[in-house]
């Protein structure tokens, strides 16, 4: 019998529990959760504000998840990991482990901004509690200022848009969703949001706040009632760092999710693992990655063998019915072929280099997009793919007949 401890209780932790139980049905599992909720679908906090889900439906797993998996759930903050003694301290208590998984997630990053302390209604947007707190402050005529036009800032903007008077989004970058979209695609999304009535101040940042006024570096002044800080997130690495683990922007993990410390694994948004699209380590703070890393860590903790070598950045996100999907890595004009097509107000850009699809973005009709994603993930040599068909539609028609027959006629 082994004793497993998991720090954190998000999707990576749920994956870890399921990974452990795929190998070891009996040993004790203890989950230490700083958030006082059973595991929930974190990205749904904006859908909750929009009225597209409820707190109950946001449960990521069934009500009996912990019981069924014989996992003990403790609501507490883990304060310290003692790698030598194999102990985790939380409050006045300690728990011993044979194998530990750090799935501590990430936290909003709030840069120092002059006068921020004078702003009464300010929020971050990472947790269910953040979402509930923000909801309480929303009024029909609220003027909301959101700092950050990334995934978190814009989903928040969409979620509250119909419930407030106005929404203005500020970002230092020159485009929206700068982490996942190129200029051309970002422009399409921005226009769509502006048509809905959202306002943007890009290539700009706040110089100082004074109560209800934000003075921008550009000289512009924005009056607001509610401030949402969605500048970015930082991996929660402190516990691992203090325990002596190798840490960069995230906790460094091998392909089997082991950290540099014996018997200690890590998974999810707190880690920096291998991103095969760039051939280097990177924090890939996306939900699918969190689950898969958690599962992989769990399998290995329990004595099984699994590794992840094909993780890539990928996102699917929509705003007011306009879908955007993206995967892989992009490059500058001239470094390869960028195949662009436009249809029905949408846009598709395929990045093709060295006979591989390195990345792509589609705004609008995303039908079949997963076929592109699999080409990026598998680094498929396009010698065996009909590139004209690939550029036209994401269908299995692009493959050789024998490849397609295997896909549709075999057990996959």
């Amino acid at each position: 019998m082994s004793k497993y401890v998991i720090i954190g209780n998000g999707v990576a932790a749920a994956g870890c529990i399921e990974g452990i139980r795929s190998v070891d049905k009996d040993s004790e599992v203890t989950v230490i959760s700083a958030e006082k909720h059973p595991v929930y679908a974190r990205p749904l906090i904006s859908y909750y504000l929009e009225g597209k889900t409820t707190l109950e439906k946001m449960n990521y797993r069934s009500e009996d998840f912990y019981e069924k998996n014989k996992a003990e759930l403790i609501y507490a903050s883990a304060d310290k990991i003692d790698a030598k003694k194999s102990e985790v301290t939380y409050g006045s208590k300690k728990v011993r482990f044979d194998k530990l998984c750090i799935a501590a997630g990430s936290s909003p990053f709030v840069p120092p901004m002059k006068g921020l302390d004078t702003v009464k209604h300010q929020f971050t947007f990472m947790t269910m509690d953040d979402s509930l707190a923000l909801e309480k402050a929303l009024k029909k005529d609220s003027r909301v200022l959101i700092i950050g036009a990334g995934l978190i800032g814009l989903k928040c903007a969409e979620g509250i848009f119909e419930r407030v008077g106005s929404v203005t989004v500020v970002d230092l970058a020159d485009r929206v969703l700068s982490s996942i979209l190129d200029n051309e695609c970002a422009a399409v999304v921005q226009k769509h949001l502006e048509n809905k009535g959202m306002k943007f101040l890009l290539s700009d940042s706040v110089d100082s706040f004074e109560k209800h006024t934000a003075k921008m570096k550009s000289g512009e002044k924005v009056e607001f009632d509610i401030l949402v800080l969605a500048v970015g997130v930082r991996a929660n690495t402190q516990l691992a760092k203090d325990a002596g683990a190798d840490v960069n922007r995230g906790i460094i993990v091998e392909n089997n999710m082991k950290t540099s410390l014996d018997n200690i694994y890590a998974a999810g948004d707190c880690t920096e693992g291998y991103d095969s699209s760039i051939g280097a380590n990177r924090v890939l703070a996306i939900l699918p990655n969190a689950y898969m890393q958690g599962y992989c860590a769990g399998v290995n903790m329990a004595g099984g063998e699994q590794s992840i070598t094909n993780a890539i950045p990928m996102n699917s996100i929509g705003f007011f019915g306009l879908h955007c999907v993206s995967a892989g890595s992009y490059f500058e004009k001239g470094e390869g072929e960028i195949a662009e097509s436009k249809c029905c107000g949408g846009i598709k850009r395929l990045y093709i280099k060295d006979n591989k699809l390195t990345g792509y973005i589609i705004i609008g009709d995303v039908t079949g997009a997963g076929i592109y994603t699999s080409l990026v993930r598998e680094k498929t040599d396009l010698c065996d793919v009909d590139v004209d068909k690939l550029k036209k539609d994401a269908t299995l028609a692009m493959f050789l007949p024998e490849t397609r027959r295997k896909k549709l006629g075999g057990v996959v």
Partner: protein
Amino acid sequence: MKRVYVNEQWCLGCHLCEYNCAFANSGMTDMVKALKAKPIYPRVHIEQSDDITYAVSCRHCKDPLCVKSCIAGAISKQDGVVKVDKTKCVGCLTCVLVCPYGAVRPGPDGAANKCELCLENSCGEPACVKGCPNNAIVYEERQDEK
């Protein structure tokens, strides 16, 4: 387990599978009322490559990426069948982003729509297979190739 497989050399490209699928999942008893003059959202679709046509539907993968990637915890695999809990789905289409077969599509309500083998609708067995006039879609057990 039994799955839906495609014999593309027999496919006529008649799209009957799409209509039978949409009807079986409509919850209605009259095919005309269910489908006539309405946009349909079948869970199987016909694709064409040059002069070959073939049906595409969920492969019910052994290790489904859609299940692992669903941001809402709405997709699960039960007794070998990959299922969507439409009450939990928020229509983010992450499943569309990851499905290597292009077999998940948004349904009428925006939620993920995919083949669940007709096991819980009025047909009780895959309607696409039952109605295929040329046995181009079959429902059978095949050996794991690996």
